[in-house]
């Protein structure tokens, strides 16, 4: 297929349709509006249904209904709207329903701003709603990767019967890059024998439920779900490691910020400083294994984020006390410049000498 120049938000929609998504329940919020707009235009042409809900809460509960009926279904929003969806995400996890949720995040707390930010890391990787659960979280760094991961996300959702989050930001949503819709490796997906069907099978009452009123039933339910999480942690971790061999400092950055770090790597090369990059592609499960091997030359890890520092907690866990863990962040919708990262790295090395 020929390459196309596509906006991130629209590319998500195109990838979802290619992955067989038939239902999309949306609600407007900047900076993700091109996605529901695209779906309202394109889904009906592909035998699907787009419906604008009365709220993000309404939308996520429509997802609950459609996912329970076995459909491939998606919803999207941006930070404050994703906060509203948390109740529904918790129920989806409790009822083990597959779906894909897109967050083109902006700054917060509260109404915050509409420029790109990464302050939803905790919300995405720590459950976000009530109770014991996690959701797989993919953080693409380019439009091509967004397209590939959206298709993958639907398969992962169906494989493990879990909601999957695509965590972009305003920049991923708004920018255009060239994309190619490649046929991704198809997984062997389990039958959805738990779902409600268009035609009822006699004597097999289906129930979509997160209520286990007896503790002695709720505990094994949670143990079963966490058994799946163990498999996800083993099978689905994704990351990219770049320039780490012999690096003076290893930066850890995801999504948009990882690209800024790449520019900083080039600039630092001119000064004879080697900056490495660990780029988590799955934020949950976090790629702890990427931190196993550290070059003896490496003096510190540097977590670079568009937040006040959230992923740094996972970097510290991964580092396990071996090296200093530094932080550079620009929150509130400010995108850091490569030179700022360069200066921070030099500061770290200066301090170490």
């Amino acid at each position, binding site marked *: 297929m020929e390459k196309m120049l596509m906006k991130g938000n629209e590319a998500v929609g195109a990838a979802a349709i290619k992955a067989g998504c038939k239902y999309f329940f949306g609600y407007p919020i900047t900076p993700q509006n091109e996605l529901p707009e695209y779906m309202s235009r394109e889904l009906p042409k592909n035998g699907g249904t787009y419906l604008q809900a009365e*709220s993000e809460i*309404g939308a996520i*509960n429509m997802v609950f209904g459609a996912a329970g009926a076995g459909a491939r279904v998606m919803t999207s929003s941006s930070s404050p709207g994703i906060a509203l969806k948390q109740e529904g995400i918790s129920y989806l996890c409790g009822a083990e329903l597959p779906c894909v949720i897109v967050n083109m995040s902006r700054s917060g707390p509260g109404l915050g701003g509409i420029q790109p930010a990464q302050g939803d890391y905790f919300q995405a990787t720590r459950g976000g709603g009530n109770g014991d659960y996690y959701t797989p979280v993919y953080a693409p760094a380019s439009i091509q990767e967004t397209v590939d991961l959206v298709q993958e996300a639907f398969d992962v959702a169906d494989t493990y019967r879990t909601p999957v989050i695509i965590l972009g930001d305003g920049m991923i949503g708004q920018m255009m890059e060239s994309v190619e819709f490649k046929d991704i490796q198809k997984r062997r997906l389990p039958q959805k024998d738990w779902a409600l069907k268009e035609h009822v099978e006699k004597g097999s009452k289906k129930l979509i439920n997160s209520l286990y009123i007896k503790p002695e039933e709720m505990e094994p339910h949670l143990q079963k779900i966490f058994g799946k999480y163990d498999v996800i942690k083993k099978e689905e971790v994704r990351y990219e490691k770049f320039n780490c061999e012999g690096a003076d400092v290893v930066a850890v950055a995801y999504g948009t910020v990882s690209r800024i770090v790449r520019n900083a790597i080039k600039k630092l090369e001119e000064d004879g400083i080697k900056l490495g990059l660990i780029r988590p592609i799955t934020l949950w499960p976090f790629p702890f294994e990427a931190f196993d091997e550290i070059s003896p030359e490496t003096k510190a890890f540097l977590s670079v984020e568009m937040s006040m520092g959230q992923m740094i907690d996972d970097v510290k866990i991964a580092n396990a006390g071996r090296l200093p863990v530094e932080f550079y962040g620009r929150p509130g919708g400010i995108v850091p410049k490569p030179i700022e990262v360069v200066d921070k790295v030099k500061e770290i090395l200066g301090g170490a000498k």
Partner: protein
Amino acid sequence: MSIVFERTRGMVDMPLHYCPGCTHGIIHRLVAESLVELGLMDDAVCVSSVGCSVFTYNYFDCDAYQASHGRAAAVATGSKRVLKDRTVFTYQGDGDLAAIGTAETVHAAARGENVTIIYVNNAIYGMTGGQMAPTTLVGQKATTSPNGRSAELQGYPIRVCEMLSTLDGTAFAERVSVHNPANVRKAKKAIKKAFEVQTAKQGFSIVEILSTCSTNWGLNPTDSLKWLEDNMIPYYPLGNFKTPEEN
């Protein structure tokens, strides 16, 4: 010997958890009988809510969802949009539908979602212990309106059928009661009609059923029926508010 009365096949053979004297049981039976008589029971999808009706998914002998508090109409929307030929209904109380779930309910009606809402109004939060509901009458005592609901402080109860019948998407809206046999028969007729409206793909249908809560009203079952008749019906008049025109 001929059978004159038997368990409806639309309900699972198990004890209900409702308090003695509660009219939820009657309403369950009416819904199940209606679906069975219309030949819709096997195809039905029940969306349970949160409140006393939280376990309805156990009682109706059909596929079911358990929705979060207030969101039954949204879950029903998602389900019905996929399962277009199945009979999707929610079973919700007044707190679930008329307080926390107002937005979902109003917009499902406005969209003309082809689902049926069974709305049980007993003017109180039952499951949580008798707190004031959006339908608690002015002057009625509740654990969060210990001196009786004050219009000045807590405003006025919501008449859901009247409100929803103003929306173009609402095809059928009727308020019934189950406080005596004649009204039980009328209630069943309305419930059947609502399901027929859905089968005919005519749009959103709701049946509001006035119901008792002996436990939280602090009355015995017969006094509860009398209280319903004397206090609720004057504020919540029975009758049909909207029905599709016959072709």
